[in-house]
């Protein structure tokens, strides 16, 4: 029976010392047969996650994020490619590798038959931990999740944010080196999201590694030290949020909308912006220096505009396009 003592375990410390990635993925391929048609949903994905960093996988729906996570956990076999998780080959040694991995799934799958405490106890047993060890750990986990007063509450009585926090606490029951999070704040209100982000920062400060999928750009910008943008099964850009913005997009954005936006765009926008995009009734003007655009817009009383710095969302939309992804 393993005993978990320190928040930064020996295996992770060794990885830090040798700078070996916690997770290394090389040339991953995975196809499914959907409605009789063979579809490759992961097409040659390679990346590595260094100890202590938060690495993000960004992409629209159907980009292959969740499949990539499942492949990394050894829950499905790749058609080709190599995965090393905690220095162990996956899927061959996936079970052993998962011993020090925590997972926060996209959909809540807390055990509805149990109380908050029982959920943690039962989940800890799946890792081969003793009841005594888990029970000693539960107060810390509940405090971390802000559920100290809810120890004996039934799952059905928890709010969405509380359930998510309990799911996060459950993922920590085995004191993981690395935590996989699949869209951890989808469906939460702003307060609940900020609380989750705050907890994730605490985990990073403790030296844990996080692999995160999201389609919230602000979430990625806030948390990730590096991220990869995935589209139709391929990584189309990788870097820190700042690098991606600098590399792929002009620094200034002016969003213009209102009556006469089309004629303004044709007469002035084209000339004053380095690049323009249109979504519905809004024109996005990208420029290194927006002063010309702003002077022109001040003379157009019918138009409204918003001037801001370029962000990750602009990069994302530029690279993956603005059309809807309904899959």
């Amino acid at each position, binding site marked *: 029976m393993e005993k978990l003592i320190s928040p930064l375990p020996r295996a992770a410390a060794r990885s830090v010392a040798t700078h070996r990635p916690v997770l290394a993925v090389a040339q991953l391929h995975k196809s499914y047969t959907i409605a009789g048609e063979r579809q490759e949903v992961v097409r040659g994905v390679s990346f590595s996650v260094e100890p202590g960093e938060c690495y993000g996988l960004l992409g629209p729906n159907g980009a292959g994020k969740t499949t990539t996570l499942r492949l990394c956990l050894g*829950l499905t076999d790749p058609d080709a490619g190599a995965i090393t998780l905690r220095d162990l080959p996956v899927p061959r040694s996936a079970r052993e590798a998962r011993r020090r991995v925590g997972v926060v*799934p996209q959909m809540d*799958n807390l055990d509805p038959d149990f109380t908050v405490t029982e959920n943690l106890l*039962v989940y800890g*047993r*799946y890792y081969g931990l003793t009841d005594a060890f888990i029970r000693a750990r539960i107060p810390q986990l509940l405090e971390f999740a802000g559920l100290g007063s809810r120890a004996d509450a039934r799952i059905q009585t928890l709010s969405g944010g509380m359930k998510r926090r309990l799911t996060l606490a459950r993922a920590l029951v085995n004191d993981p080196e690395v935590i996989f999070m699949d869209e951890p704040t989808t469906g939460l209100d702003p307060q609940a999201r900020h609380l989750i982000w705050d907890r994730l920062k605490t985990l990073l400060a403790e030296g844990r590694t996080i692999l995160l999928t999201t389609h919230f750009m602000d979430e990625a910008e806030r948390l990730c030290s590096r991220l990869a943008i995935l589209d139709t099964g391929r990584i189309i850009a990788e870097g820190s949020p700042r690098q991606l913005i600098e590399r792929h997009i002009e620094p200034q954005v002016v969003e213009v909308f209102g009556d006469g936006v089309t004629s303004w765009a044709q007469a002035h926008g084209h000339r004053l912006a380095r690049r323009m995009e249109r979504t519905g009734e809004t024109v996005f003007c990208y420029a290194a220096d927006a002063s010309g655009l702003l002077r022109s817009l001040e003379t157009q009383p019918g138009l409204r505009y918003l001037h801001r710095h370029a962000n990750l969302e602009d990069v994302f939309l530029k690279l993956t396009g603005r059309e809807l992804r309904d899959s």
Partner: protein
Amino acid sequence: MSRPYVLPACSLRFVPVWRRNFLVWQKLAIPSILGNFADPLIYMLGLGYGLGRLLPEIDGMPYIVFLAAGTVCFSTMNAATFEALYSAFSRMHVQRTWEAIMNAPVTLDDVALAELLWAVTKSFLSGLAILIVAWALGLVASPLALWILAVIPLIGLAFAGLALAITALARGYDFFMYYFTLVVTPMAMLCGVFFPTEQLPPALQALSAVLPLTHATQLVRPLLLGTVPDDVLVHVAVLLAYAAVGFYAAVVLFRRRLLK
């Protein structure tokens, strides 16, 4: 999973999964145990005494004794089937409990084994309850009947294995109605639960001979009467074969469904 047909590789990691189900059961233990006793007791007393008055002895025993042996097998089959169909499906599909478990160092094969053995456990409680009732009614002839305690888990294994394979194919709870209508209910009529299989036309007798519940009743009924059953090894082997084939099919189908 690129090789879904390899034999199940199970480990002791199934134990915490079994314990999870046990903990849920403990919370509802009292109504569950009452149900184990009440339901079959009503059946046995109603049919046994009501119908038994009208019937001469069957195969040299009072009808209620005949029925008690059949009910042990029937209840065990039902309990194993229900647990491995409805409850396992809830945990696999509706609650996504399996998904949560498989993120821990527990494999699908371990989860499937835990579900199999949990269904056997539930069915054991059911079969045991009938046996206790039969004993309390003075229907148990000798301590030889204690061997029934070893037969019940075999019956449970056979039906839990088959039912898990059905669960692996199910898209919703409605699907299980087919299994009950086409498999479980006919089996109850064909396998010597309520009346001797000799009453059946020859074609149905031939079918009956290969059904698992027939082999269950042929083990339990003599043991309840205090005699050693004929062809013990054949009956045990048939029940184990159903369990093995069912469980293997279930694991292959679960892999194709969940590990793709």
